[in-house]
Structures are given as structure tokens and as C-alpha cells.
């Protein structure tokens, strides 16, 4: 099943500087068909921390999540998530919500939601109960018996997130979870996400190209540049996110947004100048 390079021997001697870092990526490079996608990427996500990774499309943001989740194996460097250093061990132990909802059209919402538990061998009655417990806070309690094609895009994303987090892993990876939605649905789901995710003992890594989304949700923002993908800046945020959408109108918020956009633009300019 796994066609990715199997150079995982280096995985075993990961050095975690921060004792409580649930995710530690160090000096990871990755090639695809002879071209370098990621160059020497290092990052950590601590327990209870929400980190956003922003960058232009095609800069390898999703590849980082594929590497942390174990879908891909790194060319060089080491990755640890929840203490698991081999990519095959991480499969099934890291919650990963992909960009598309990827709901199975022949399963009801409840059956889609419990897929992760079902694959682990949890009995149907127990996994269905677990879906019901979370369904109310996810706002999908009325559609549990509906088929995915009867749901709106926003509802489908809620189901996809529930499916990803139901196995209760410590590490949660989100790849542009609301990228395909309209602006109004997106902003309401962003606020909802910050409420619904119990992150006290979890590490959340969000990939997005939406700078506002990153500032609204994250404790820390990492800025990426393309060709090859690398992390070029880091911004620690301590603004009050509790005031929801109004937060976006404060001078502090706008200043931060400008600053991060400048960091992104600098990269593009730098790249352009070197040509």
C-alpha cells in the first residue's frame, strides 16, 4: 500500500527539546519525482498548543501534515508525534482532517463518524454511542441518519472533523478544514472550531492560506515560503480570541494581519528578485 520511500531509520533518534512537545519535526526534507518539496523543515507543537502554518498554495503545507500523520515517510530528518517516531506507527494514532471531507456516500452520517473506531474493532453499539455523545456539540445530532449527499458543505465538514477526532488522539492535524466553504459559513465554523476542540491536553496543527483564520484560532503562526517549501518566520500571538468575529476589527488584529502578510509577501519578492 505504501509507495513512499522507506528511509525511516533516521526516525528512531529524534531529539525532543521541549519535553512537552507532542509534535516534533526536525530537519525534514522531502522530494517528489526528483523535485524538492520540503527543505530542512523543523517545528514543534506543544501540549495544549494550537499552531497555524500559513503559506501560499503549493508550498508543501499539506505535505508536512501527510508526513506527520504517517501517510508519507520523510526523505531525511526525523518526526515524532505523540512519541511515535516511525511513520507506520503514527498511522491510526494521529487525527488528520484532510482538505476534502471524504465522506463515504454509502454510509449515513453516524456510520461515517464512527469509521475510525470501527476500524479499530470497537463494537458498533459502543462506537455509535460515542458519535451520539459528540453529535450535539458538533451540531449534527439531527442528521445522524442522513446520507452525506443530503448535507451542506459546512455540515459535511463537521462530520469529517468528528470522524477525525472521535478516536481521541493527542495530535490533531487540520488541512484547510474550511477552505472550500463560502465566507459566511467559514467564519461561523471558525468560531465553532475554537469552542468545540477541547485542546487542553492536545496539540493542534492547522494548515491554511487564510491569514485571518490563523490569527483567529492559533497561539502561534508559522510562515512558509515555496520552492522548496521551508519555514521562514514564526509569530507568537497573544491577542484576545474570545471576542470572536469582533476580534478581526481591532487595530491589534489588523496590525498582526498586515505583519504576517508582509512576511508572506517578502518571500515572494525575495524569490522574484533572485530570478
Amino acid at each position, binding site marked *: *500500500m505504501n509507495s513512499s520511500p522507506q528511509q525511516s531509520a533516521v526516525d528512531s533518534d529524534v531529539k525532543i527539546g521541549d519535553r512537552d512537545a507532542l509534535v516534533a519535526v526536525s530537519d525534514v526534507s522531502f522530494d517528489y519525482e526528483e523535485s524538492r518539496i520540503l527543505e530542512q523543515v523543523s517545528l514543534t507543537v506543544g501540549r495544549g498548543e494550537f499552531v497555524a502554518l500559513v503559506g501560499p498554495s503549493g508550498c508543501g503545507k499539506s505535505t508536512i501534515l*501527510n508526513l506527520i500523520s*504517517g501517510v508519507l515517510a520523510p526523505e531525511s530528518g526525523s518526526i515524532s508525534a505523540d512519541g511515535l517516531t516511525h511513520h507506520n506507527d503514527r498511522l491510526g*494514532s494521529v*487525527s488528520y482532517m*484532510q482538505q476534502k471531507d471524504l465522506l463515504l*456516500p*454509502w454510509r449515513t452520517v453516524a456510520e461515517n463518524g464512527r469509521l475510525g473506531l470501527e476500524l479499530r474493532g470497537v463494537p458498533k453499539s459502543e462506537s455509535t454511542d460515542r458519535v451520539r455523545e459528540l453529535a450535539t456539540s458538533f451540531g449534527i445530532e439531527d442528521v445522524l441518519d442522513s446520507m452525506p449527499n443530503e448535507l451542506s458543505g459546512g455540515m459535511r465538514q463537521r462530520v469529517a472533523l468528528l470522524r477525525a477526532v472521535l*478516536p481521541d488522539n493527542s495530535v490533531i492535524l487540520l488541512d484547510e478544514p474550511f477552505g472550500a466553504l463560502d465566507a459566511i459559513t467559514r467564519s461561523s465554523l471558525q468560531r465553532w472550531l475554537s469552542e468545540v476542540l477541547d485542546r487542553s491536553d492536545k496539540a493542534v496543527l492547522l494548515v491554511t492560506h487564510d491569514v485571518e483564520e490563523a490569527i483567529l484560532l492559533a497561539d502561534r503562526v508559522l510562515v512558509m515560503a515555496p520552492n522548496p517549501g521551508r519555514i521562514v518566520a514564526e509569530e507568537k500571538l497573544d491577542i484576545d480570541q474570545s471576542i470572536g468575529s469582533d476580534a478581526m476589527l481591532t487595530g491589534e488584529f489588523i496590525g498582526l494581519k498586515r505583519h504576517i502578510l508582509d512576511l508572506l509577501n517578502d518571500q515572494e519578492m525575495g524569490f522574484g528578485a533572485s530570478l
Partner: protein
Amino acid sequence: MTLLFATRGRVIEWLPAIATTVALVVLWEVLVAVLDVQRWLLPAPSVIFTELFDSFAFLMGHAGTTLAEILIGFAVSIVLAVTIASGIIWSRSVERSIYPMIIASQTIPIITLAPLLIIWVGTDITSKVIVIVLFTFFPIVISLVSGLRSVDQEMVDMFRTLGASPWQIFSKLMIPSSLPSFFAGLKVAAVVSVIGGVIGEWFGSSSGLGWLMKIAGGQFQTARVFAAIVVLSILAMALFAAVVAVERWSLRKYPPTANRVIRLGDS
């Protein structure tokens, strides 16, 4: 249920086919009468229908033999095709060793093989079943393999991140995703299975529509040959309709990921 209670909408759907058939039959009847064609050379539709009516029980008896051969052959083909397609999906070496043989099997002129089959396994039902399997397993294998292969890679990755084993990915994702292709193959197989049955019977049997056509043809009972052809066509259409009915039922239960009917030109 919808098959039993054909609605008015369905009758309208079938109208063009019925009108075309009736027009051709009338043309045929008129041309045979006007050109005074000999009955043993080309019987008029009215003569064929008379034969069909007079020998109905006789024809049905032989149709039963052929239908039994087809159903057994079809079942064997499905089991064989599912096994081979799964082997091809699971192992590159199975694929490399078996694919050339599958294609080679389709280049065997079955008309030359059929008499040998009679010598090898005798004139009972086995020889007919083998011929039907040779005709039908190929379209099923090819379409099933392409269906299993066409599964969305992102879906596979999603299953992997949830900790799915290869077997779970196969059974819970790839098999349901491959149903539309599988049924496309089954529909081709349903129609060619009838030809397989007739060819199998042609070379050594004591009953069946193929045997009947051979005997009647030899005795210049051309109307009976045509009556048997009519029964065979109805048999093929009924098999095709049965596959379509099962397809509708299973695709309602397992809807495909992309669920769109593409129609070019007039609707």
C-alpha cells in the same frame, strides 16, 4: 417493484424501440410477400410467429436447458473473475503472471476449441459451462480490476490515517467503490453468455436452443431457427434487465462517489 409496476413514463420511454421494431417487421413481411421469397430461405414474420406460437412449450423446454447452462456459467464466471481481479489487485506478481494468460485466453478461437471440449469433458452440461465461462469472465475481470484501481487515493489515505489494514481498505472502500465498473462488465457478460451457450450446444448436445437451431437448420425448418433466435434474444434481454435491476438496487445501497449521468446531444 418498479419492474413489476411499469409506469406510464416507462411505456413512453420504450415507445421508440417498439415503433422501430414494428416498422421493421411490417417492412420485412411486405418485402417477403412482394418479392415472393421462399419460406425455407427467409420466412415472413407471420410464419415465424405462427411457429413460435405452435411450438411454444417445445421452445421453452430447450430455452430452459440453455438458461440453466447460462446461469451456472455466469455464476462460475463471477466467482472466477472476482478471485482473479482480487489477486491482481493484491499482488504485482500475480498481475504480471496472470494478465498475459487472460488476454491469450481471449484469442483462442472458441469455435475450434468447442469440439475438443466435447472430447475432453463429454457432452453433458460441463462443456457448455466452460464455453460460457470463456466468453464471460474476461469482461468481468477487466472491468472489476479497473473499478478497484479507480478508487480515490485521498480516500485510501484517509482510511490509512484512521489505522485501516489493507484488508479493511479493500473490503470497506475498494469493493463498494468498484461496483459501477463491476456492473458494466456484468452487463456485457450477460449478453455474450447467450452466444456462449449456443456455441457450446452447437458442437455436441441433445437439447438447448443452440442444438435446436442446428437440427432445424439442417432440415431447412428455417421458421423454427428464427423462432429460436427470437427466444434467445428475449433471453438475453431478460438477463440484461436482471443485471440492471440488481445494479440499481446495489447502487442505491452503495451510491458511487461521482453520481452524475452525462448525456451528450439531445436529452
